[in-house]
Protein backbone atom coordinates (compact mmCIF):
# COMPACT_ATOMS: atom_id res chain seq x y z
CA UNK A 1 0.00 0.00 0.00
CA UNK A 2 2.71 2.46 1.12
CA UNK A 3 4.85 1.46 -1.84
CA UNK A 4 2.03 2.20 -4.26
CA UNK A 5 1.30 5.58 -2.62
CA UNK A 6 5.00 6.44 -2.70
CA UNK A 7 5.14 5.54 -6.42
CA UNK A 8 2.23 7.87 -7.16
CA UNK A 9 3.81 10.64 -5.11
CA UNK A 10 7.12 10.27 -6.92
CA UNK A 11 5.38 10.46 -10.26
CA UNK A 12 3.30 13.44 -9.03
CA UNK A 13 6.56 15.17 -7.99
CA UNK A 14 7.93 14.56 -11.45
CA UNK A 15 4.68 15.73 -13.12
CA UNK A 16 4.73 18.98 -11.11
CA UNK A 17 8.39 19.59 -12.00
CA UNK A 18 7.55 18.91 -15.63
CA UNK A 19 4.63 21.39 -15.52
CA UNK A 20 6.81 24.01 -13.81
CA UNK A 21 9.45 23.67 -16.53
CA UNK A 22 6.83 25.09 -18.94
CA UNK A 23 5.54 27.51 -16.34
CA UNK A 24 4.26 30.27 -18.65
CA UNK A 25 2.24 27.93 -20.84
CA UNK A 26 0.77 25.89 -18.01
CA UNK A 27 -0.09 28.82 -15.74
CA UNK A 28 -1.91 30.59 -18.58
CA UNK A 29 -3.71 27.33 -19.39
CA UNK A 30 -4.74 26.96 -15.73
CA UNK A 31 -5.99 30.58 -15.58
CA UNK A 32 -8.12 30.14 -18.73
CA UNK A 33 -9.37 26.77 -17.54
CA UNK A 34 -10.35 28.31 -14.17
CA UNK A 35 -12.20 31.13 -15.93
CA UNK A 36 -14.21 28.70 -18.04
CA UNK A 37 -15.13 26.58 -14.98
CA UNK A 38 -15.98 29.79 -13.13
CA UNK A 39 -18.31 30.91 -15.90
CA UNK A 40 -20.17 27.60 -16.13
CA UNK A 41 -20.36 27.17 -12.34
CA UNK A 42 -21.56 30.76 -11.82
CA UNK A 43 -24.36 30.31 -14.39
CA UNK A 44 -25.39 26.99 -12.86
CA UNK A 45 -25.35 28.33 -9.27
CA UNK A 46 -27.14 31.54 -10.20
CA UNK A 47 -29.94 29.98 -12.23
CA UNK A 48 -30.49 27.20 -9.70
CA UNK A 49 -30.64 29.67 -6.78
CA UNK A 50 -33.00 31.99 -8.72
CA UNK A 51 -35.31 29.11 -9.60
CA UNK A 52 -35.40 28.10 -5.96
CA UNK A 53 -35.98 31.70 -4.88
CA UNK A 54 -38.88 32.02 -7.35
CA UNK A 55 -40.38 28.75 -6.11
CA UNK A 56 -40.20 29.86 -2.46
CA UNK A 57 -41.34 33.47 -2.95
CA UNK A 58 -44.13 32.79 -5.44
CA UNK A 59 -45.74 30.09 -3.30
CA UNK A 60 -47.96 32.87 -2.00
CA UNK A 61 -48.99 33.99 -5.50
CA UNK A 62 -52.70 33.64 -6.39
CA UNK A 63 -53.89 30.06 -6.89
CA UNK A 64 -55.37 31.04 -10.26
CA UNK A 65 -55.20 34.31 -12.19
CA UNK A 66 -57.96 34.87 -14.76
CA UNK A 67 -57.24 37.20 -17.67
CA UNK A 68 -59.50 38.20 -20.51
CA UNK A 69 -58.19 37.92 -24.05
CA UNK A 70 -59.34 39.83 -27.11
CA UNK A 71 -57.75 38.89 -30.45
CA UNK A 72 -54.80 37.29 -28.67
CA UNK A 73 -54.14 40.29 -26.47
CA UNK A 74 -54.96 41.05 -22.85
CA UNK A 75 -58.02 43.08 -22.16
CA UNK A 76 -59.71 44.38 -19.03
CA UNK A 77 -61.88 41.85 -17.19
CA UNK A 78 -65.48 42.86 -16.42
CA UNK A 79 -65.98 42.78 -12.65
CA UNK A 80 -69.25 41.00 -13.44
CA UNK A 81 -67.18 37.81 -13.90
CA UNK A 82 -66.41 37.82 -10.16
CA UNK A 83 -69.81 36.61 -9.02
CA UNK A 84 -70.04 33.87 -11.66
CA UNK A 85 -66.55 32.58 -10.97
CA UNK A 86 -67.09 32.74 -7.19
CA UNK A 87 -70.13 30.50 -7.68
CA UNK A 88 -67.95 27.68 -9.09
CA UNK A 89 -67.61 24.97 -6.46
CA UNK A 90 -64.17 24.99 -4.84
CA UNK A 91 -63.44 28.72 -5.36
CA UNK A 92 -63.16 30.34 -1.93
CA UNK A 93 -62.37 33.93 -2.95
CA UNK A 94 -62.14 36.08 -6.07
CA UNK A 95 -60.32 39.37 -5.89
CA UNK A 96 -60.16 41.80 -8.81
CA UNK A 97 -56.61 43.11 -9.28
CA UNK A 98 -56.09 46.57 -10.68
CA UNK A 99 -52.61 47.19 -11.97
CA UNK A 100 -50.63 48.51 -14.90
CA UNK A 101 -47.34 49.97 -16.06
CA UNK A 102 -46.03 53.51 -16.02
CA UNK A 103 -43.05 54.84 -17.95
CA UNK A 104 -41.31 57.64 -16.10
CA UNK A 105 -39.90 59.95 -18.78
CA UNK A 106 -37.66 61.75 -16.25
CA UNK A 107 -35.67 58.71 -15.14
CA UNK A 108 -36.44 56.44 -18.11
CA UNK A 109 -37.60 53.69 -15.76
CA UNK A 110 -40.71 51.52 -15.99
CA UNK A 111 -42.78 51.10 -12.84
CA UNK A 112 -45.59 48.73 -11.95
CA UNK A 113 -48.57 50.60 -10.51
CA UNK A 114 -51.02 48.65 -8.41
CA UNK A 115 -54.13 49.43 -6.39
CA UNK A 116 -54.00 48.64 -2.70
CA UNK A 117 -56.98 48.64 -0.35
CA UNK A 118 -55.26 50.12 2.70
CA UNK A 119 -54.00 53.38 1.16
CA UNK A 120 -55.79 56.72 1.61
CA UNK A 121 -56.29 58.82 -1.56
CA UNK A 122 -53.36 61.05 -2.49
CA UNK A 123 -50.73 58.78 -0.96
CA UNK A 124 -48.45 56.10 -2.34
CA UNK A 125 -46.19 53.31 -1.10
CA UNK A 126 -43.15 52.87 -3.32
CA UNK A 127 -40.66 50.07 -3.81
CA UNK A 128 -37.06 50.51 -2.79
CA UNK A 129 -35.92 50.53 -6.42
CA UNK A 130 -38.30 53.40 -7.22
CA UNK A 131 -37.03 55.35 -4.21
CA UNK A 132 -33.43 54.76 -5.29
CA UNK A 133 -34.05 55.72 -8.93
CA UNK A 134 -36.09 58.84 -8.22
CA UNK A 135 -34.23 59.75 -4.97
CA UNK A 136 -37.55 60.15 -3.22
CA UNK A 137 -37.93 59.31 0.47
CA UNK A 138 -40.85 58.91 2.86
CA UNK A 139 -42.89 62.11 3.15
CA UNK A 140 -41.74 63.42 -0.28
CA UNK A 141 -44.05 63.74 -3.25
CA UNK A 142 -43.81 61.52 -6.30
CA UNK A 143 -45.12 63.02 -9.56
CA UNK A 144 -47.07 60.76 -11.94
CA UNK A 145 -48.37 61.99 -15.26
CA UNK A 146 -52.02 61.03 -15.68
CA UNK A 147 -53.62 59.98 -18.96
CA UNK A 148 -55.54 63.30 -19.27
CA UNK A 149 -52.11 65.02 -19.31
CA UNK A 150 -51.87 66.68 -15.92
CA UNK A 151 -49.20 65.61 -13.46
CA UNK A 152 -50.51 64.43 -10.09
CA UNK A 153 -48.42 64.46 -6.93
CA UNK A 154 -48.70 61.62 -4.42
CA UNK A 155 -47.22 61.80 -0.96
CA UNK A 156 -45.02 58.80 -0.22
CA UNK A 157 -46.43 57.16 2.88
CA UNK A 158 -43.70 54.55 3.12
CA UNK A 159 -40.93 52.92 1.14
CA UNK A 160 -41.47 49.16 0.94
CA UNK A 161 -38.76 47.26 2.83
CA UNK A 162 -35.39 46.82 1.14
CA UNK A 163 -35.61 43.13 2.02
CA UNK A 164 -38.54 42.59 -0.36
CA UNK A 165 -36.85 44.14 -3.41
CA UNK A 166 -36.97 40.97 -5.46
CA UNK A 167 -40.77 41.19 -5.44
CA UNK A 168 -41.41 44.91 -5.05
CA UNK A 169 -38.50 46.97 -6.36
CA UNK A 170 -40.50 48.75 -9.10
CA UNK A 171 -43.88 48.83 -7.35
CA UNK A 172 -45.93 51.95 -6.73
CA UNK A 173 -49.04 51.26 -4.67
CA UNK A 174 -51.93 53.72 -4.91
CA UNK A 175 -55.53 53.77 -3.76
CA UNK A 176 -58.03 52.27 -6.21
CA UNK A 177 -59.67 55.64 -6.90
CA UNK A 178 -56.31 57.29 -7.67
CA UNK A 179 -55.26 54.52 -10.03
CA UNK A 180 -58.57 54.63 -11.91
CA UNK A 181 -58.31 58.41 -12.23
CA UNK A 182 -54.68 58.25 -13.41
CA UNK A 183 -55.26 55.78 -16.22
CA UNK A 184 -58.87 56.71 -16.92
CA UNK A 185 -59.71 53.12 -16.03
CA UNK A 186 -63.37 52.39 -16.80
CA UNK A 187 -65.53 51.56 -13.79
CA UNK A 188 -66.65 47.94 -13.55
CA UNK A 189 -63.43 46.55 -15.02
CA UNK A 190 -60.24 45.18 -13.50
CA UNK A 191 -56.87 44.13 -14.98
CA UNK A 192 -57.36 40.51 -13.96
CA UNK A 193 -58.88 38.36 -11.23
CA UNK A 194 -56.96 36.57 -8.47
CA UNK A 195 -58.66 33.41 -7.23
CA UNK A 196 -58.18 31.47 -4.03
CA UNK A 197 -58.98 27.78 -4.25
CA UNK A 198 -59.43 25.72 -1.10
CA UNK A 199 -58.08 22.43 -2.40
CA UNK A 200 -54.89 22.66 -4.53
CA UNK A 201 -55.86 19.43 -6.32
CA UNK A 202 -58.96 21.14 -7.73
CA UNK A 203 -57.12 24.05 -9.36
CA UNK A 204 -56.79 22.45 -12.80
CA UNK A 205 -60.47 21.38 -12.83
CA UNK A 206 -61.62 24.85 -11.80
CA UNK A 207 -59.39 26.43 -14.48
CA UNK A 208 -60.94 24.13 -17.10
CA UNK A 209 -64.45 25.09 -15.89
CA UNK A 210 -63.58 28.80 -16.14
CA UNK A 211 -62.14 28.34 -19.65
CA UNK A 212 -65.34 26.51 -20.69
CA UNK A 213 -67.69 29.04 -19.08
CA UNK A 214 -65.77 32.10 -20.35
CA UNK A 215 -64.21 31.24 -23.72
CA UNK A 216 -62.51 34.66 -23.87
CA UNK A 217 -60.67 34.05 -20.59
CA UNK A 218 -57.27 32.63 -19.87
CA UNK A 219 -56.78 31.07 -16.45
CA UNK A 220 -53.16 30.83 -15.26
CA UNK A 221 -52.46 28.36 -12.45
CA UNK A 222 -49.99 28.96 -9.64
CA UNK A 223 -48.01 25.92 -10.83
CA UNK A 224 -47.76 27.52 -14.30
CA UNK A 225 -46.39 30.72 -12.75
CA UNK A 226 -43.72 28.66 -10.99
CA UNK A 227 -42.94 26.66 -14.14
CA UNK A 228 -42.48 29.91 -16.08
CA UNK A 229 -39.46 30.66 -13.90
CA UNK A 230 -38.24 27.11 -14.27
CA UNK A 231 -38.32 27.48 -18.03
CA UNK A 232 -36.71 30.95 -18.04
CA UNK A 233 -33.73 29.70 -16.06
CA UNK A 234 -33.68 26.29 -17.64
CA UNK A 235 -30.38 25.49 -19.39
CA UNK A 236 -32.23 25.72 -22.71
CA UNK A 237 -33.56 29.19 -21.93
CA UNK A 238 -32.30 32.07 -24.10
CA UNK A 239 -28.86 33.35 -23.21
CA UNK A 240 -28.15 30.43 -20.88
CA UNK A 241 -27.76 28.02 -23.75
CA UNK A 242 -25.52 30.50 -25.60
CA UNK A 243 -23.25 31.04 -22.60
CA UNK A 244 -23.09 27.36 -21.73
CA UNK A 245 -22.44 26.56 -25.38
CA UNK A 246 -19.49 28.98 -25.49
CA UNK A 247 -18.05 27.48 -22.31
CA UNK A 248 -18.47 23.90 -23.53
CA UNK A 249 -16.81 24.77 -26.84
CA UNK A 250 -13.87 26.23 -24.91
CA UNK A 251 -13.48 22.83 -23.27
CA UNK A 252 -13.67 21.12 -26.63
CA UNK A 253 -10.82 23.38 -27.80
CA UNK A 254 -8.75 22.56 -24.69
CA UNK A 255 -9.34 18.85 -25.10
CA UNK A 256 -8.80 19.00 -28.87
CA UNK A 257 -5.50 20.80 -28.36
CA UNK A 258 -4.39 18.04 -26.00
CA UNK A 259 -5.81 15.13 -27.96
CA UNK A 260 -4.42 16.12 -31.37
CA UNK A 261 -0.86 15.53 -30.32
CA UNK A 262 2.15 16.37 -28.26
CA UNK A 263 4.80 18.96 -28.96
CA UNK A 264 8.21 17.73 -30.22
CA UNK A 265 9.63 18.55 -26.80
CA UNK A 266 7.06 16.37 -25.04
CA UNK A 267 7.68 13.48 -27.48
CA UNK A 268 11.38 13.78 -26.83
CA UNK A 269 10.76 13.76 -23.08
CA UNK A 270 8.70 10.56 -23.36
CA UNK A 271 11.46 8.98 -25.50
CA UNK A 272 14.10 9.83 -22.90
CA UNK A 273 11.96 8.49 -20.06
CA UNK A 274 11.38 5.23 -21.94
CA UNK A 275 15.07 4.89 -22.75
CA UNK A 276 16.10 5.33 -19.09
CA UNK A 277 13.77 2.52 -18.06
CA UNK A 278 10.28 4.01 -17.56
CA UNK A 279 7.49 1.68 -18.58
CA UNK A 280 4.53 2.70 -20.74
CA UNK A 281 2.31 2.51 -17.63
CA UNK A 282 4.58 4.93 -15.76
CA UNK A 283 4.51 7.40 -18.66
CA UNK A 284 0.71 7.22 -18.82
CA UNK A 285 0.51 7.73 -15.06
CA UNK A 286 2.77 10.78 -15.39
CA UNK A 287 0.52 12.26 -18.10
CA UNK A 288 -2.56 11.42 -16.06
CA UNK A 289 -1.19 13.37 -13.12
CA UNK A 290 -0.19 16.29 -15.31
CA UNK A 291 -3.77 16.51 -16.63
CA UNK A 292 -5.29 15.93 -13.20
CA UNK A 293 -3.17 18.64 -11.52
CA UNK A 294 -4.26 21.32 -14.01
CA UNK A 295 -7.92 20.29 -14.23
CA UNK A 296 -8.47 19.58 -10.52
CA UNK A 297 -6.85 22.89 -9.45
CA UNK A 298 -8.88 24.76 -12.08
CA UNK A 299 -12.11 23.03 -11.08
CA UNK A 300 -11.74 23.78 -7.35
CA UNK A 301 -10.63 27.39 -7.86
CA UNK A 302 -13.32 28.03 -10.51
CA UNK A 303 -16.13 26.63 -8.36
CA UNK A 304 -15.03 28.56 -5.25
CA UNK A 305 -14.75 31.82 -7.20
CA UNK A 306 -18.19 31.22 -8.76
CA UNK A 307 -19.77 30.58 -5.35
CA UNK A 308 -18.24 33.78 -3.91
CA UNK A 309 -19.31 35.81 -6.96
CA UNK A 310 -22.91 34.59 -6.93
CA UNK A 311 -23.69 34.40 -3.23
CA UNK A 312 -21.36 36.99 -1.66
CA UNK A 313 -21.29 39.60 -4.44
CA UNK A 314 -24.89 39.00 -5.65
CA UNK A 315 -23.73 37.92 -9.12
CA UNK A 316 -22.66 41.47 -9.92
CA UNK A 317 -20.83 40.29 -13.07
CA UNK A 318 -24.14 39.15 -14.58
CA UNK A 319 -25.93 42.40 -13.75
CA UNK A 320 -25.28 44.17 -17.10
CA UNK A 321 -26.63 41.14 -19.00
CA UNK A 322 -29.72 40.82 -16.80
CA UNK A 323 -30.36 44.54 -16.64
CA UNK A 324 -30.51 45.05 -20.42
CA UNK A 325 -31.78 48.55 -21.08
CA UNK A 326 -33.69 48.73 -17.82
CA UNK A 327 -32.92 51.70 -15.59
CA UNK A 328 -34.29 50.08 -12.48
CA UNK A 329 -32.71 46.86 -11.28
CA UNK A 330 -33.41 45.25 -7.91
CA UNK A 331 -30.68 44.64 -5.37
CA UNK A 332 -31.07 41.25 -3.78
CA UNK A 333 -29.13 38.48 -2.14
CA UNK A 334 -29.71 34.87 -3.05
CA UNK A 335 -29.93 32.14 -0.44
CA UNK A 336 -27.01 29.79 -1.23
CA UNK A 337 -28.37 26.59 -2.67
CA UNK A 338 -26.09 24.29 -4.62
CA UNK A 339 -27.36 21.05 -6.07
CA UNK A 340 -24.73 18.29 -5.45
CA UNK A 341 -25.88 16.61 -8.67
CA UNK A 342 -25.01 19.72 -10.69
CA UNK A 343 -21.63 19.93 -8.96
CA UNK A 344 -20.94 16.28 -9.87
CA UNK A 345 -21.98 16.89 -13.50
CA UNK A 346 -19.71 19.92 -13.62
CA UNK A 347 -16.83 17.81 -12.28
CA UNK A 348 -17.33 15.07 -14.85
CA UNK A 349 -17.76 17.60 -17.65
CA UNK A 350 -14.59 19.51 -16.86
CA UNK A 351 -12.02 17.31 -15.12
CA UNK A 352 -12.56 13.90 -16.75
CA UNK A 353 -12.52 14.82 -20.49
CA UNK A 354 -9.39 16.95 -20.12
CA UNK A 355 -7.52 14.28 -18.17
CA UNK A 356 -8.50 11.58 -20.67
CA UNK A 357 -7.57 13.83 -23.58
CA UNK A 358 -4.12 14.28 -22.02
CA UNK A 359 -3.49 10.54 -21.77
CA UNK A 360 -4.48 9.42 -25.31
CA UNK A 361 -1.69 11.11 -27.38
CA UNK A 362 0.85 10.20 -24.65
CA UNK A 363 -0.18 6.58 -24.95
CA UNK A 364 0.41 6.75 -28.71
CA UNK A 365 3.84 8.37 -28.17
CA UNK A 366 4.78 5.97 -25.35
CA UNK A 367 4.13 2.85 -27.43
CA UNK A 368 6.61 3.75 -30.20
CA UNK A 369 10.30 2.97 -30.06
CA UNK A 370 12.17 5.40 -27.70
CA UNK A 371 14.81 6.00 -30.36
CA UNK A 372 12.16 7.00 -32.94
CA UNK A 373 10.40 9.20 -30.35
CA UNK A 374 13.61 11.07 -29.54
CA UNK A 375 14.49 11.56 -33.22
CA UNK A 376 10.99 12.69 -34.30
Amino acid at each position, binding site marked *: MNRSVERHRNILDFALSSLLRRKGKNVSLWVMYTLVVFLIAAIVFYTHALKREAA*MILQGAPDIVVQKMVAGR*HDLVPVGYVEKIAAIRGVTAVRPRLWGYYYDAVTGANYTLMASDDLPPGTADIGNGVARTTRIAEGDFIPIRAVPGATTLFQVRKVLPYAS*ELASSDLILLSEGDLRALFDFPRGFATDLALTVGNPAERATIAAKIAAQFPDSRPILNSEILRT*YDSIFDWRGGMMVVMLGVAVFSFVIFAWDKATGLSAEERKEIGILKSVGWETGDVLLLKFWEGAVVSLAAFLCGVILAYVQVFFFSASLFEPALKGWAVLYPRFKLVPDVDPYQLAVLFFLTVVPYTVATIIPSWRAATVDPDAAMRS
Partner: protein
Amino acid sequence: MRKSTAFLLFTLGNAILLVLLLWSGRYASGEARAMREASRVLVQKLQLTDLCLFTEARYTRHPSMADLHSAFQDHPLALEHFPSGSLATPPRFRRERP
Protein backbone atom coordinates in the same frame (compact mmCIF):
# COMPACT_ATOMS: atom_id res chain seq x y z
CA MET B 1 8.70 20.45 1.20
CA ARG B 2 8.06 17.98 -1.64
CA LYS B 3 6.14 19.42 -4.56
CA SER B 4 3.54 16.65 -4.27
CA THR B 5 2.95 17.56 -0.59
CA ALA B 6 2.45 21.22 -1.52
CA PHE B 7 -0.02 20.26 -4.27
CA LEU B 8 -1.95 17.87 -2.05
CA LEU B 9 -2.16 20.52 0.69
CA PHE B 10 -3.36 23.09 -1.86
CA THR B 11 -6.04 20.70 -3.16
CA LEU B 12 -7.10 19.66 0.34
CA GLY B 13 -7.29 23.33 1.43
CA ASN B 14 -9.47 24.20 -1.55
CA ALA B 15 -11.69 21.16 -1.01
CA ILE B 16 -12.17 22.07 2.67
CA LEU B 17 -12.92 25.69 1.72
CA LEU B 18 -15.53 24.53 -0.80
CA VAL B 19 -17.19 22.20 1.71
CA LEU B 20 -17.22 25.00 4.32
CA LEU B 21 -18.81 27.39 1.83
CA LEU B 22 -21.50 24.86 0.89
CA TRP B 23 -22.12 24.02 4.55
CA SER B 24 -22.21 27.64 5.72
CA GLY B 25 -24.65 28.48 2.93
CA ARG B 26 -27.19 26.13 4.47
CA TYR B 27 -27.04 27.66 7.92
CA ALA B 28 -25.56 31.15 7.80
CA SER B 29 -27.27 33.29 5.20
CA GLY B 30 -29.48 35.28 7.53
CA GLU B 31 -29.83 38.38 5.35
CA ALA B 32 -30.73 36.43 2.22
CA ARG B 33 -33.26 34.33 4.16
CA ALA B 34 -34.81 37.48 5.67
CA MET B 35 -35.11 38.92 2.14
CA ARG B 36 -36.80 35.76 0.91
CA GLU B 37 -39.28 35.83 3.78
CA ALA B 38 -40.05 39.56 3.33
CA SER B 39 -40.66 39.02 -0.40
CA ARG B 40 -42.83 35.97 0.26
CA VAL B 41 -45.01 37.91 2.74
CA LEU B 42 -45.43 40.80 0.30
CA VAL B 43 -46.30 38.47 -2.59
CA GLN B 44 -49.01 36.88 -0.48
CA LYS B 45 -50.37 40.19 0.78
CA LEU B 46 -50.51 41.97 -2.58
CA GLN B 47 -51.21 38.81 -4.62
CA LEU B 48 -48.19 39.42 -6.86
CA THR B 49 -47.35 36.95 -9.60
CA ASP B 50 -43.78 37.63 -10.70
CA LEU B 51 -40.28 38.48 -9.56
CA CYS B 52 -39.03 41.96 -10.34
CA LEU B 53 -36.00 40.92 -12.39
CA PHE B 54 -36.33 42.56 -15.81
CA THR B 55 -38.18 45.87 -15.79
CA GLU B 56 -37.50 47.03 -19.33
CA ALA B 57 -40.55 45.48 -21.05
CA ARG B 58 -43.91 44.40 -19.68
CA TYR B 59 -43.58 40.85 -20.98
CA THR B 60 -40.22 40.44 -19.22
CA ARG B 61 -41.43 42.17 -16.04
CA HIS B 62 -44.36 39.76 -15.72
CA PRO B 63 -43.38 36.78 -17.89
CA SER B 64 -45.99 34.48 -16.36
CA MET B 65 -48.78 36.93 -17.25
CA ALA B 66 -47.55 37.73 -20.76
CA ASP B 67 -49.21 36.40 -23.86
CA LEU B 68 -47.10 34.65 -26.48
CA HIS B 69 -47.28 37.55 -28.91
CA SER B 70 -46.22 40.31 -26.51
CA ALA B 71 -42.66 40.40 -27.79
CA PHE B 72 -43.85 40.84 -31.37
CA GLN B 73 -46.57 43.35 -30.67
CA ASP B 74 -45.67 45.85 -33.39
CA HIS B 75 -46.36 43.49 -36.28
CA PRO B 76 -46.21 39.73 -36.76
CA LEU B 77 -42.65 39.74 -38.15
CA ALA B 78 -41.26 42.30 -35.68
CA LEU B 79 -37.95 41.36 -34.14
CA GLU B 80 -37.68 41.17 -30.37
CA HIS B 81 -35.55 44.16 -29.45
CA PHE B 82 -35.16 44.17 -25.66
CA PRO B 83 -31.96 42.49 -24.40
CA SER B 84 -33.77 40.72 -21.56
CA GLY B 85 -36.14 39.22 -24.14
CA SER B 86 -33.33 36.81 -24.96
CA LEU B 87 -33.27 35.71 -21.31
CA ALA B 88 -36.97 35.65 -20.50
CA THR B 89 -38.49 33.30 -23.00
CA PRO B 90 -42.29 33.15 -23.41
CA PRO B 91 -44.15 30.82 -21.04
CA ARG B 92 -44.59 27.33 -22.44
CA PHE B 93 -47.60 26.24 -20.45
CA ARG B 94 -50.85 27.70 -21.60
CA ARG B 95 -54.43 26.58 -21.69
CA GLU B 96 -55.38 29.00 -24.47
CA ARG B 97 -57.59 27.72 -27.26
CA PRO B 98 -55.78 27.49 -30.57
